[in-house]
């Protein structure tokens, strides 16, 4: 059985009609006058692209450079496959992509490993390499942005009490930069450590705390973050993750960016747990060293987690993922006895925003 097709030799753009006869080990190409034009062995035969349905199809040969054989239908390919010859064209949708998908998958896992394994190990050295003055500038910028939305509370007596408490806790830690604590007029129950020794306490925390010792506990936790330079590492981590995953994703269509963001938040979440545990441990040690009770902090966290799931899920829990073990650890490790502030200081601090 002979099939019709056309042939370009890869040297000029001229095309000639050919008749193709599949032999036992090779395709024989004949000119319309019946003379033999060329012979293409089965080994080395390949399809130029995927074949859809009944064709058309194009063939090339490894040993014949850029010469191309164009077939109006896929009948020849079907016969070749039926007689045990090469299977060409593959499944138009799946077959040719599987090998490359594996390569892409390996590539993706490598980059993901770089983000999940390499980046956290690089964070501490990278953060240590950043000069203290840079992190102070960074922290100042972030605080300025926050303060633009939520004004800083400026009660003088309250600020004095807060500074005294911060100094008392920090005197047992080694900090590269001076500590600056501010209260912002925001009803969120939360506190943050910013780069460069800046700590922000939201007014909502002072209201919800009921006890100066609980505020001291949160403050000690944030000071611990500062000691470990977690805020700076966090900035580097999010920028690095975004950069690496951005490089990986390559394009920014909506579906892809959803996939990318999902991976990113997974990675970020797994980091923050380790950081929180470290800050908890050092925080409790600072409380103990300053001889401040730790139980009120545990009580505050328990009270907030009881609210969890209701409408008022407090922000403290969303940025400080809470587990029963964390509360149990605080209870077990804390052995301070004294109060954090006297009643006059506590009153001043509670009214710092008025």
């Amino acid at each position, binding site marked *: 059985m002979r099939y019709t097709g056309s042939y370009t030799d890869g040297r000029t753009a001229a095309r000639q009609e050919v008749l193709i006869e599949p032999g036992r080990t090779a395709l024989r190409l004949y000119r319309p006058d019946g003379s033999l034009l060329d012979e293409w062995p089965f080994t080395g035969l390949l399809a130029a*692209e995927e074949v859809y349905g009944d064709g058309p199809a194009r063939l090339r040969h490894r040993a014949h450079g*850029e010469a191309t054989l164009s077939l109006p239908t896929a009948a020849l390919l079907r016969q070749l496959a039926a007689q045990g010859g090469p299977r060409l064209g593959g499944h138009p949708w799946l077959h040719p992509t599987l090998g490359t998908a594996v390569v892409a998958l390996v590539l993706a896992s490598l980059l993901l490993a770089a983000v999940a394994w390499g980046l956290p190990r690089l964070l501490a050295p990278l953060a240590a390499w950043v000069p203290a003055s840079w992190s102070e500038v960074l922290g100042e910028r972030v605080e300025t942005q926050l303060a633009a939305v939520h004004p800083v509370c400026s009660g003088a007596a309250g600020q004095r009490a807060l500074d005294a408490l911060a100094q008392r806790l920090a005197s047992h830690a080694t900090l590269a930069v001076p500590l600056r604590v501010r209260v912002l007029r925001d009803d969120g129950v939360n506190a943050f450590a910013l780069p460069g020794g800046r700590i922000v306490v939201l007014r909502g925390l002072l209201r919800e705390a009921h006890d100066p010792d609980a505020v001291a506990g949160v403050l000690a936790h944030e000071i611990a973050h500062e000691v470990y330079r977690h805020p700076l590492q966090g900035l580097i981590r999010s*920028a690095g993750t975004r950069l690496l995953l951005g490089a990986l994703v390559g394009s920014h269509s909506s579906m892809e960016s959803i996939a990318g963001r999902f991976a990113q938040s997974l990675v970020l979440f797994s980091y923050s747990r380790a950081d929180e545990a470290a800050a908890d441990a050092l925080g409790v040690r600072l409380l103990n060293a300053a001889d401040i009770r730790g139980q009120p902090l545990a009580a505050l966290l328990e009270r907030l987690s009881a609210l969890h799931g209701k409408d008022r899920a407090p922000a403290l829990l969303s940025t400080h993922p809470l587990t029963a073990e964390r509360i149990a650890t605080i209870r077990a490790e804390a052995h301070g006895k004294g109060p954090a502030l006297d009643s006059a200081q506590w009153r001043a601090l509670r009214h710092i925003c008025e």
Partner: protein
Amino acid sequence: MSDTTMSPATAAPVVNPLPPGGQSPFVHHGRTRELLGICAVNLLLKVVTLGAYHFWGKSRVRRYVWSHTLFAGEAFEYTGRGKELALGYAVAMLVLVPLIVLLNLLPLLAERAPWLVIAVSLGVYPLFAFLAGVGMFGARRYLLSRTRWRSIRFALTGRARAHGGLTLLYGLLSMITFGLYVPFMRNRLAAHLIGNAWFGSERFRYDGADDVLLHRYLRAGALMVGVLVAWVALLALGMPLLAGFLRGAQAERLGALLPAVIGVVVMLLVFPAMGGAWLWYRAGELRHFVAHTRLGDARFALELSNRRYIWLYLSNLGALVGTLGLAYPWVVVRTARTLTTHLRMDGVLELGAIEQSSIPTPRTGEGLFDALDLGSI
């Protein structure tokens, strides 16, 4: 089998590609359904590989589009590989990532070295204009080198650096002339890209004049201003009429709202007017680019009306936005179909005289183009 037995095509007939009757020799017969299948598999693999499959998927789509676009009865062939795109992207990232990190760290130096900050800020835009030009040229060179028709490769000669320099220079001229130079810039960049393109041993030529485009550009500007003036006049006339219709407190309330209303209306009108005028210009520009392109003795013409072009663009945009990109296969197929049915070729192309390209092909492609997000397809 020895080489001497295979001396094909020595007496090959030159096939005249022109079908009788002045029909378009270009045909696209891709099917949305098939391309949708490819895109669905691509998306799945992209999600599984966190996006890394992007480059392979892109090659796959191109292979489909090229192989379903015919000229004179023979389909084009795309020979690019996903790994070439991935490699090109990685190389571009090596250039861009340090640059981006540097730019992000710059504000930290604002107090220490303000002069450095100013110098770098001033240098950034020229640098990115240059890189955009380089990326554009590199992408075109890759695309042409991976496109074949009747086994003959396309190619682009010249230097990417030169295109980057031209982009930078013309961009500066456009800025200095408040945009008046834009049509010149676009025509000259097109001339650089088309005039350096080859099909095998045959070079494309471009002889499009600047002033025709400038004329159209000015008319587009006038059109935009005219539409705006008409709207504002209508508004200015309509408002007092409306105010006279309403009385007392109602009119006062309307008066208080007036600035806001005018603001909204201007917002609603300026952008469509600008976009419409720009698309109208682009329709003529595209016809101009095609009409002044020659290959051998052959000339081309795109017989696509302004209205058709603008409708094609807007409906594609609407479909993509409305379906969050799911309509992409439909957009690709219908765009290819519309462009091919309106693309004509006149004159004779001596195909037997066109030999295989001897221009070296680049190994990787499109890195900068992809990384800077300069376009699609």
